[in-house]
Structure formats: C-alpha cells, structure tokens
C-alpha cells in the first residue's frame, strides 16, 4: 500500500473541503477523480505536506506518521496542474534545479536531468529556454522534474491538460511506462475519464469531500447484469428471433446500423450467440462484453442529473 488516508478532514476556516476520507491507494496507477472542488487537490496538498489536516492520519510508503513534509517530498514526485516554469532557465537547468532543491548533489542532479529529459523525449530541446516551449513540451519538463529524484510515488495533476491528440497519447504512454514497467506508484488526477480508463488499474472517486466509490477499475465498470454488444450483418428480424430462441433475455439496438445490446442470462454460453447468428444467416462482426464506461460510473456516483453548476 503506497498511500493511506485514515479519516482525513481538511478545513479552510469554516469551510470543510474534505470530510472523513478513508482511502488506500494501491501500487500501480490509481485514478483520483472528482469534480472541481470535490477535494482532490486538498488531498494532494495534504499528502505533500502543504497543509495540515484538521483530523485524521495519512501515511506515505513506510514513512513515520509524523514525517516532515520535506521527508515526504523526498519519496514523492509532484507534477503541478498549472502551467508553470522557472523564468530564464532552459529545460536541462530546470530539471537539474528541481533535483538540487530536493537534495540531490550537483553531479547526481546533472546526470538525472539528462536522463529524465531523455526518458520523456525532450532530448533535443533540452538546451532551449522553457519559456519558448509548446504546451506539450512544458508538460514533459514538469514530468521530468517530478521524476528527477527517483521518487517511488508520483502525483500527476491533470498531466494531459492542453495537449493535442498526439501529445496526449505520448503522455499517457509515459504514465503507463512509469506505472507498469518502472513500478512507480502513480496517483493520476484527471478530468478526462478516458485517460484514467486507459492508464489506471483502480480508481478513487471523490464528491463533496467524501469518497463516493473506490476500487479496481474492473469491479467498478462491471455491469450489474450480463450485457454484450453485438454487431452483425444478419437480417434484423431473423437475428432477433434466433437470439431469443437461444435464450437471450433482451435485445435492444439500432437495427439500421446492425448494432445490438444483448442481455444474457447468467449461464448462457457464448457459442449459443454465435450459433444463433449463424442460423440467421449472418456473421458476427463484433461481440464484446459491455462494460460501463467510467463516465457512467462517475455520473452515477455523483448523481449528475441533480447536481448544481460549479
């Protein structure tokens, strides 16, 4: 367990930002989701030691409970959400400075700066001033800075913010590499749920300062009933009757497109579906178990129909 929150409450004056949150962030990539003001950044700040919770305990890796913020930041790499850079420095200097400010000796900081910029793919631009970088390059410099002291835990706040499709893919691939190949624990906060779906193995979902849902992605996106998506070229009527005969409970779909959503009883084997399609004279172009998207899970958890504007 990398990060553990026990009954954390965070207050700003009389405003309660986080109330009694208990959560555990397992190893690997974890998505931290929530609307604006749900308490995500308060939790990140508390973990970084930038603010002190009014109540509760938090622990990072095997550090003592009363570890100082500076000790925590030695094992944690933080990539801020805001577009930020240190004026007047080039990419190499920025990352090296980040390392030295964390406590790396000058030689190590220099070596790591080169290595991390290579890792994130900024090798060729490293001697250019960061002020002239594009949005994607700036995100990469922030990531390289977060990695410079070889932290075991990474907090990435909206790492795909402002990136175009190619930039986003690159950034997400990097996140996956860090979590899966380099065994870093990544805490990823993002508004783009598909990014989280693509990179994270589990999710913690906050709303109004409380945990609304958490757990492995597989479990959260599990449908309560057994649903399958089917694309088939078979004639709709024939197909429908063949499927019903095979035992499919419900068929809904847009027939013009040949896409259907099937509700299956618990024990109906899949070959029966294929067989039904064969008997109706068509082919299966697609048959996959339907999982709820993270968006459905999210909207369901926060009760999106009744929420006010924030």
């Amino acid at each position, binding site marked *: 367990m990398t990060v553990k929150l026990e009954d954390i409450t965070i207050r700003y004056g009389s405003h309660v930002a986080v109330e009694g949150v208990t959560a555990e962030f397992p190893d690997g990539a974890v998505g931290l*989701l*929530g*609307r*604006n*003001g749900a308490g995500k950044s308060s939790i990140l700040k508390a973990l970084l030691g930038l603010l002190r919770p009014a109540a509760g305990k938090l622990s990072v890796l095997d550090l003592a409970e009363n570890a100082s913020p500076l000790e925590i930041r030695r094992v944690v790499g933080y990539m801020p959400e805001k577009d930020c850079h240190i004026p007047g420095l080039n990419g190499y200097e920025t990352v090296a400075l980040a390392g030295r400010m964390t406590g790396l000796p000058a030689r190590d900081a220099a070596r790591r700066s080169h290595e991390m910029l290579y890792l994130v793919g900024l090798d060729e631009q490293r001697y250019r001033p960061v002020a002239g970088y*594009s*949005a*994607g390059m700036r995100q990469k410099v922030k990531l390289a800075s977060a990695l410079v002291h070889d932290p075991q835990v990474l907090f990435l706040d909206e790492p795909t*913010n*402002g*990136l*175009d*499709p*190619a*930039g*986003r*893919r690159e950034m997400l691939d990097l996140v996956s590499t860090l979590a899966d190949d380099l065994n870093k624990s990544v805490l990823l906060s993002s*508004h*783009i*749920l*598909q990014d989280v779906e693509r990179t994270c193995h589990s999710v913690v979902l906050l709303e109004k300062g409380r945990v609304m849902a958490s757990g492995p992605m597989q479990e959260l996106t599990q449908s309560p009933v057994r649903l399958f998506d089917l694309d088939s*070229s078979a004639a709709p009527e024939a197909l429908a009757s063949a499927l019903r005969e095979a035992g499919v409970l419900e068929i809904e779909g847009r027939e013009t497109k040949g896409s259907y959503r099937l509700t299956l009883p618990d024990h109906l*084997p*899949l*070959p029966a*579906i*294929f*067989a039904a*399609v*064969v008997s109706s004279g*068509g*082919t*299966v*172009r*697609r*048959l*996959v*178990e339907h999982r709820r998207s993270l*968006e459905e899970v*999210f*909207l369901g958890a*926060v009760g*999106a129909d009744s*929420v*006010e*504007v*924030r």
Partner: protein
Amino acid sequence: MIEFLGVSKWYGQVSALVDMSFTVEAGVTGLVGQNGAGKSTLMKLAIGLLRPSLGQVDVDGGSPQTPEVRRNLGYCPDLDAFYEDLNGLTFVTWMLRIHGYSGAEARRRAKDSLQRFGMAEVMGRKIRGYSKGMRQRIKLAQALAHEPKVVFLDEPMTGLDPVARHQMSEAIRELGESGVSVMVSSHVLHELQSVVDRVLLIHQGRLMAEGTVSDLRRQLEDRPHRLRLRSRNPRELAARLTSLEVVSGLSFTHDGLELATAGGDGLFQTLTELGADQGQLVDEIAPVDDSLEAVFGYLVS
C-alpha cells in the same frame, strides 16, 4: 451553411491554411487537428475575424464580414479572457447590445440564455469569482444568446470537470438536433466522437479528410483493420487463422490474439463459425481501430 472555396491564409510568410474547400451543413461538425494545424485560423476566417488571403468564405449565404451575416453567427473562443469586474449577466447583456438588441430585450435574452446553462443563481456575481466551468458557460451563453444559425465553439471543454463535460456534450448535441450548424473543436477525440455527426480533419493547414467517422475508416483501405479476439486457446486459434489470405498479421495478447486483416466477409464467417463451435476458440471479437482517434492517427502519421 458554411462554405470554403479554395481558401488559403498566410500571415506574412507563414502559411496557416492551404487551399481549403469544403461545405458544412446543419448538425454538429467536429474540427480535429494537432496544435498549430490551423483550427483556430479556420474558425476565425469563418466568423469573419480574418479575411482569407485567397479564395472565398461563405457562411449562411454571404460573407461573414457583413453585419447581416454576422448577426447569425455565434462564437465561443478558446481564450479565457473577460472583463473580470462585470457580473455574468451584464457581460452577456453587453454582448447582445453589440448585436443590436435594445436594452430590455438584451437583458431578457441574456437571462434566458444564462438560465439555460444553469447559471441563474450565479449570474449576479463578478466573473472574477467564477470557476472554470462557469466561465466556459458564460462564453457559451453569449455565443448562443442571440439564437444564431451557425455556431463555432473552440475547445469548449478545456478545464471542465467530468460532469460539466457531460452537460456540455449534451448541450452541443441538442443544439445540433435543433437545426443549428455547430462547428466544435476538441483535443479529446473520444469525447468529440460521441457529439459530432461528421468531422473535418486538418493537418498542417490542409484538409486531410471530411465525413463521418465510419465512412472515413472504410475509405482507409490500405490500412489493415485490427481485431482483438479473446480466446481460451489462442495458439490453436492462431493456427486456424494463419491459413486465411486476408490475415496479414497476428500477435498474442494476455488473453487472446490481435489480428491485422484486410477484413472481408470470409474472415468474419470463419470467426463466427469458430465461435459457434463448442471448442470455444473465439469468445469475443472486438475491432480496435474504428474510432476517431485511430482514424486520426492513421491519417496524420
């Protein structure tokens, strides 16, 4: 509604758009491209903020530089810049006054529009104190308050949280269904795909493709389709499939196979039969590259 005829635009020596011709009808059109591909230039040409260096832009039957046409245009810029000390209602009312509405009428419309985007409670507060979501909404409210026929939304989702994104998507979809032509750009292709009827895909100032996503995928014939098959016995399945002419590549995943194929009925026939067989060689068939993201990747790479 929107027609570009051989439009080129360059800024000094820098070429931003190259010989672009297309027509967009009612409904939602997605504008897709990398940073710097020319999306914002295209939108600015279409609302008449810029004049084309070559060619002709027609929107709603006239040049967007004429006031009559402009009254029917709505624009939601990607910049986040406001008169911070105004409140939301005053801001939108002003924008309407600029469109030529009388004071009372402008105020009524501004209220309606803000209400429509769920801003009724906060429209009396200064813009300075608004959250990112509220700021995006007043931009949208001012773009739509005068009931334009053609609407341009430049990255309307940036910085919004998932709920707000969902609501924004719904709003855009409804707008398209009500007969307005909407042109919307976004970097989050997955999300855009669920909102738009068709896309314009631009790259380095050139129009690369236009049409619905499935049409575009179908036209990319030289690119093999990729299918992910879930199987309990992938090696056996692979042995059966390699004999097929249309299969051009094959790799093992943790729970099955990934296939590169020219497609065709023969392959699906075989797969369906294998699935129906009690040997259960095929459990699931999932095409993995029929998304806008994959199409964009193929066209741009």
